[in-house]
């Protein structure tokens, strides 16, 4: 089964979506086009059919119409004796199978001896021809349409269909021709000559028309009343106009109006609640009756519907087959992807030797396979390297840790350092930028009442600086055992450091020797940042800048020394440039000015609190930017 979020599902749904959309569009286009063709074909067919039917009827009606015309002209010539008129009518009926009956109806008292009513009538009764003379007021033909209308119009006239009670006794339509005679030198209306058309007979002809299964033809009169209709109850029933009202079908009214105006038309014909139809109607030439042919919409388009249904079924089947085949193909093509995903997981767990899926094709899968295989090798190699590097790094780190411990153990870090020396209160701190650093400080007592302290900064950072620092610190202690003045200590120290100093490293150094009895401070400065003096009176000032170069550069350099008198309560604040040059991430330095502000603000604090407040200020400046240089501070109060 295809999973909903799988590649094949997505490909197939997209392809199907596009295919179905295309198919629907094509089918809709085809259906629309074919429907138009069928409708046009039907229209032509309807015109032809109605034309044929009309022709057939005309062929019957036109000869029929000649009969009363001939009778009328015969009457007007006055050649025939009134008593032989009936036999002429009988002959007419007998000789013309299309004629149901024929009559000659005269004006009142036309023949003075025949009375008011005088009408001769011959009509078919089965195989025989029956003739009669109607001369009573029971058959009051003067007021009948077939008589009255042509008399007034003074021209031939086809009557509306009617039931001829008392004479023909069937449904019929009558063609009447008026005739005249000369009386007293005047042409006067004399009567009407007629032939009757049996509607039943016309119905038979029209009913022969077969259209599909249920299509049919029918005829309407001028007034829209059915003359013939396969449903015989419709004949002589209501007119199109009244049916339009009754069925709520305005289209019937339009049809009726068209026919009155003699317009032919092929149109859709839909009465609510009934099947949709297509109708073509046209008038006969000889009178205003009309012929209509009716095509049921359902049957007209049945073949199209069938073809469309077949098409849909075939294409749906095809799509199903396509889906099955495509999904199979895609599943097979994409299978390596799933396997590669599994391999990737295994590799992620650290098993680089996992066997990759076999790819036999030479396509993108092969590329993926090669890339995977390459990645495996690279990863394996990388991890080996990483392990080695890590091991080496760990070794170095552990060595550096030990080196750091050794280095830290070289500088005093017990505070207060001299509980039995009340004159000196001291605090110092050293924070390396790396594991080991090049800053140093030291202090010790020489000869009971001389307190020696030093602070220094080796050029550079890290291991080289730390080694140089260790050498400096060791030499200082050794030299201070023998020398007592700061300058001589410095010079000896410088000589030792500068000797064979191939690396050209140097150390800035401040060394002070304080006489604990007198408060006299002798100091020498080898290029170090001058310490700050905080007087007991609140004055904050810096030692003047050194005029001597750092230690380790020139063996024979002469270092000078200076003296300053400290009073009780005076404090010294010594530092390395890691304090004044502490950087934040915008590369802004902490600065000497800021440092002096902190010192000024903390001038009443004891050494430890002063250093802590400076440390806090530096931390606030640097925030989480990596420490750029070693930081060392030392504060001493003389009491």
């Amino acid at each position, binding site marked *: 089964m295809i999973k909903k979020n799988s590649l094949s599902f997505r490909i197939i749904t997209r392809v199907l979506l596009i295919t179905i959309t295309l198919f629907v569009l094509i089918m809709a286009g085809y259906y629309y086009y074919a429907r138009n063709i069928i409708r046009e074909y039907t229209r032509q067919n309807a015109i032809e059919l109605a034309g044929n039917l009309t022709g057939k009827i005309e062929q019957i009606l036109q000869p029929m119409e000649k009969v009363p015309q001939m009778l009328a002209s015969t009457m007007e010539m006055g050649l025939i004796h009134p008593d032989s008129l009936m036999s002429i009518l009988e002959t007419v009926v007998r000789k013309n199978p299309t004629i149901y009956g024929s009559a000659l109806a005269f004006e009142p008292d036309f023949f003075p001896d025949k009375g008011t009513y005088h009408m001769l009538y011959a009509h078919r009764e089965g195989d025989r021809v029956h003739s009669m003379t109607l001369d009573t007021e029971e058959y009051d033909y003067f007021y009948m349409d077939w008589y009255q209308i042509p008399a007034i119009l003074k021209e031939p006239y086809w009557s509306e269909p009617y039931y001829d009670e008392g004479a023909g006794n069937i449904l019929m339509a009558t063609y009447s021709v008026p005739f005249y005679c000369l009386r007293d030198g005047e042409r006067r209306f004399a009567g009407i000559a007629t032939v009757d058309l049996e509607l039943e007979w016309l119905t038979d002809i029209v009913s022969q028309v077969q259209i599909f299964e249920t299509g049919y033809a029918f005829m309407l009169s001028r007034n829209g009343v059915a003359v013939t209709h396969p449903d015989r109850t419709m004949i002589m029933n209501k007119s199109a106009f009244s049916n339009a009202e009754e069925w709520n079908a305005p289209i019937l009214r339009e049809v009726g109006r068209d026919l009155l105006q003699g317009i032919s038309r092929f149109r859709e014909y839909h009465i609510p609640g009934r099947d949709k139809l297509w109708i073509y109607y046209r008038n006969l030439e000889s009178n205003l009756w009309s012929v209509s042919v009716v095509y049921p919409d359902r049957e007209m388009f049945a073949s199209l519907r069938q073809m469309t249904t077949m098409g849909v079924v075939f294409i749906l089947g095809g799509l199903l087959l396509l889906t099955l085949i495509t999904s199979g193909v895609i599943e097979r093509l994409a299978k390596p992807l799933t396997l590669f995903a599994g391999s990737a997981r295994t590799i992620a767990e650290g098993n680089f030797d996992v066997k990759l899926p076999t790819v036999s094709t030479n396509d993108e899968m092969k590329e993926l396979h090669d890339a995977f295989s390459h990645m495996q090798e690279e990863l394996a190699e990388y991890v080996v390297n990483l392990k080695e590097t890590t091991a080496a790094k760990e070794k170095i780190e552990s060595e550096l840790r030990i080196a750091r411990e050794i280095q830290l153990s070289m500088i005093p870090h017990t505070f207060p350092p001299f509980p039995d020396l009340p004159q000196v209160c001291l605090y110092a701190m050293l924070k390396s930028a790396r594991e080991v650093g090049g800053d140093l400080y030291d202090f010790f007592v020489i000869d009971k009442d001389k307190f020696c302290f030093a602070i220094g900064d080796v050029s550079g950072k890290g291991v080289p600086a730390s080694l140089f620092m260790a050498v400096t610190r060791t030499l200082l202690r050794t030299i201070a055992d023998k020398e007592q003045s700061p300058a001589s200590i410095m010079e000896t120290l410088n000589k030792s450091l500068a000797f064979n100093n191939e690396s050209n490293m*140097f150390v800035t150094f401040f060394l002070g020797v304080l006489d604990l009895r007198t408060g006299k401070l002798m100091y020498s400065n080898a*290029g170090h940042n001058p310490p700050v003096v905080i007087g007991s009176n609140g004055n904050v000032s810096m030692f003047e800048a*050194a005029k001597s170069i*750092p230690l380790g550069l020139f063996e024979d350099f002469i270092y000078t020394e200076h003296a300053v008198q400290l009073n009780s309560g005076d404090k010294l604040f010594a530092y390395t*440039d890691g304090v004044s040059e502490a950087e934040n991430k915008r*590369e802004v330095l902490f600065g000497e000015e800021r440092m002096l502000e902190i010192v000024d603000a903390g001038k009443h604090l004891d050494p430890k609190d002063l250093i802590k407040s400076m440390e806090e200020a530096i931390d606030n400046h640097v925030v989480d930017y990596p420490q750029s*240089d070693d930081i060392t501070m030392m504060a001493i109060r003389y009491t």
Partner: protein
Amino acid sequence: MNLTQEKLNDHLLLQVVGRLDTTQSDSFEKQIMEILDQGHEKIILDCKGLNYISSSGLRIFLIMQKKMMGAGGQFKICGLQPSIKEIFDMSGFTMIFSIYQDVDEALKA
């Protein structure tokens, strides 16, 4: 940090621009060593574009000074920015180096 060099009369003019901190000083040292090995007699180091120097950087200046002096040549520094000049003053290096206002002054000397 960026180092450029050009010939100026009988001098080699070096111009250093940017920061010379611990991380940069290794590559600076390498470039300087190559230049020194070429055996120039007179070198001017123009520092007007140098805006920070660490002690590692100062060490390289010292190496240049020592090597040039050892070879009997001349090494002149010029165009120190005030903050750099301050460091030179404080560390006493002003005493060791020949420091001039600008390149013209260094050339004339």
